[in-house]
């Protein structure tokens, strides 16, 4: 995860890499708002680069589902909708359940210890300030387990198709605050199952963990919609 989030100085990566990662963060943090139009000329001026590498960066953003391009209309940042959010949760229930099962089979003892260390770090962060955990810390945990599956297709689907989109929703919708402590306890149970090499249990716990989050979000959205109706 850290290698994705780290803002490496530009001279050490290609131009499109740098621009892509800046735009990813700007979209996730809402500096470029969801649903807004992307202007190529304005971005080229802003970054001080030519159109070639900029288009390359935009293609990558399209590949990770953060922008949508329509012929003759141009590019837009994706719009956030409750339905879309629920769809992502449903896919994660299945995908990450599978990842947890495979992680129980394939993670090394050292990697499992690193998961423990990550949880320990999260516990400190929850005590100090929940916002980091809500925004990024939770994703670190899920990504570690997906990587632990050692299944390259699964890792690819998660890190390219879903990862930034999940970050986007997480950052802008937040985690329902009453869920944070509970979610942390569930993470602990999942790690226990992985350590015991019980793939079936790990899969079940992970699916149920994400499903609980989904139901919580649905409830929140329902209440919110009822109030605003």
């Amino acid at each position: 995860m850290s290698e994705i989030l780290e803002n490496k100085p530009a001279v050490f990566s290609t131009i499109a890499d740098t621009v892509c990662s800046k735009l990813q963060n700007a979209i996730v943090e809402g500096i470029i708002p969801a649903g807004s139009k992307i202007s190529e000329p304005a971005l080229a001026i802003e970054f001080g680069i030519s159109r070639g590498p900029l288009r390359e960066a935009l293609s990558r953003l399209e590949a990770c589902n953060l922008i949508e391009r329509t012929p003759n209309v141009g590019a837009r940042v994706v719009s956030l909708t409750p339905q879309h959010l629920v769809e992502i949760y449903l896919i994660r229930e299945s995908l990450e359940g599978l990842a947890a099962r495979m992680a129980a089979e394939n993670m090394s003892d050292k990697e499992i210890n690193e998961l423990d260390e990550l949880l320990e770090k999260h516990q400190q962060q929850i005590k100090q300030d929940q916002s980091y955990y809500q925004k990024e810390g939770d994703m670190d945990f899920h990504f570690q387990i997906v990587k632990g599956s050692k299944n390259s297709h699964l890792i690819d689907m998660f890190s390219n198709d879903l990862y930034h989109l999940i970050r986007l929703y997480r950052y802008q919708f937040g985690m329902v605050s009453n869920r944070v402590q509970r979610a942390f306890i569930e993470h602990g149970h999942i790690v226990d199952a992985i350590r015991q090499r019980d793939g079936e249990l790990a899969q079940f716990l992970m699916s149920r963990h994400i499903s609980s989050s989904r139901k919580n979000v649905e409830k929140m959205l329902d209440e919110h919609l009822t109030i605003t109706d």
Partner: protein
Amino acid sequence: MSNKLVSPGTRFRLAVEEEKPLQVVGAINAYHARLADATGFRSLYISGGGVAAGSCGIPDLGITTLEDVLIDLRRITDVTDLPVLVDIDTGWGGAFNIARTIRSMIKAGAAAVHIEDQVQQKRCGHRPNKAIVSQVEMVDRIKAAVDAKTDPEFVIMARTDALAIEGLDAAIDRACACVEAGADMIFPEAMTELAMYQKFVDAVGVPVLANITEFGSTPLFTTEELASVGVSLALYPLSAFRAMNAAALKVYSTLREEGTQKNVVDLMQSRAELYDYLAYHDYEQKLDKLFSGDKP
């Protein structure tokens, strides 16, 4: 000009990646920054010698201060988005002064600075009798500068004047020690042969700048020649300044001698051109729009 998505430091690094070598051109004042921007340059330079001579009318001997440079920098970053590399001489003091210099530079919109290893009582890099501090002291300067960065992508460039005093190998050693201490780019001052740059490039592993200043120790290598030895940035600190000075002198003396400027009007930029580069008419239209209702 403030910018939410990318800092000037990022823009400078991107420009170094995209244009090889990146031409960094001296702007003696804000109007020249506009001229260079309109001409297509991707990066600007504020020379310490330029601030001393152009803004203060004194020689480049460590007399000007941080504030003198900041005044020129703020005026330039007010009118252009081009990333600006700033000459901060020796950083104007010890570790805390250097830290304050770095923070002030970032606040004023600089993209990059170069800090050198001359003694405080410095001289122009292309003049005799330079003196430099020890490698340890230079590395301390770099550490202080790097530690003070409030934007991780702000560029600290280490300049070494060691070639003329301690020779090529010692200069390269210094540059490597500076990179180790966190310098992002290297500026070997007053190189006399193209092959010297190649040696720096091979040794330091970060972008290297060539100072192609006129009437100095370095031949006027072309961008093609510099690219052939892996140089990443080509600097022209005072080229336009020297030309404008010669033109000014010509106009002054002609006026004085002939009692009219008629014979030198051809040298001058026209009023229309002056206005074009200032976007004068956009300003005028804005004024008309703002106050049209108040007209009698």
